[in-house]
């Protein structure tokens, strides 16, 4: 299957600092999705990347899909306490393979 590895497992930042999580696969991915799970909540869809080298932005969030479609990243600029949660990437085959997630904690 199209397993995806996600790093780091945890990230603690001061409010205002940037944050990046990375998703890597040993195989070429058809597309990749990103989800956010707030503490005590359920995963919520953020975005889907399909094209090689694709870059998408949502306010302070920037999503990238690698040229070889084997990796992806989510970058948050100037984190806020509302960014706290766990961020998951998922490869779609159509069966979903979720990464292990990166838990972000933001200190005010």
């Amino acid at each position: 299957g199209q397993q995806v590895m996600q790093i780091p497992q945890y990230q603690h930042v001061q409010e205002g600092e940037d944050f990046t999580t990375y998703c890597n696969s040993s195989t070429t991915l058809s597309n990749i999705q990103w989800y956010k799970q707030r503490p005590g909540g359920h995963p919520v869809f953020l975005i889907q990347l399909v094209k090689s080298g694709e870059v998408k932005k949502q306010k302070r969030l920037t999503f990238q899909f690698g040229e070889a479609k084997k990796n992806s990243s989510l970058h948050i600029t100037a984190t806020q306490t509302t960014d706290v949660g766990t961020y998951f990437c998922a490869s779609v085959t159509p069966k979903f393979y979720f990464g292990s997630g990166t838990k972000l904690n933001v200190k005010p």
Partner: protein
Amino acid sequence: GAGVSQSPSNKVTEKGKDVELRCDPISGHTALYWYRQSLGQGLEFLIYFQGNSAPDKSGLPSDRFSAERTGGSVSTLTIQRTQQEDSAVYLCASSLPGGGRTQYFGPGTRLLVL
């Protein structure tokens, strides 16, 4: 419109008992997924239904776990002879047919096996 609903929201049971968890997907969503999430962990794929096709059961951890989907809508996940290691949040998600569709998750059922 209504999102994915799951019931019960919480379930406490004794080791060895059977439990049934229910998922009502979004109307029109032919794809339905079950996941298990242990405390602080990622999402573990359990089973995938797509329309009338045979379900992908490759993620079920043992033969104590089974799931069915009646009429292409409601799904029930059954855990027989529950064990303490079955304690987790069981999440259901649905999506439209076809690859690359957004998954919409339900609130989950928190299962505690004593």
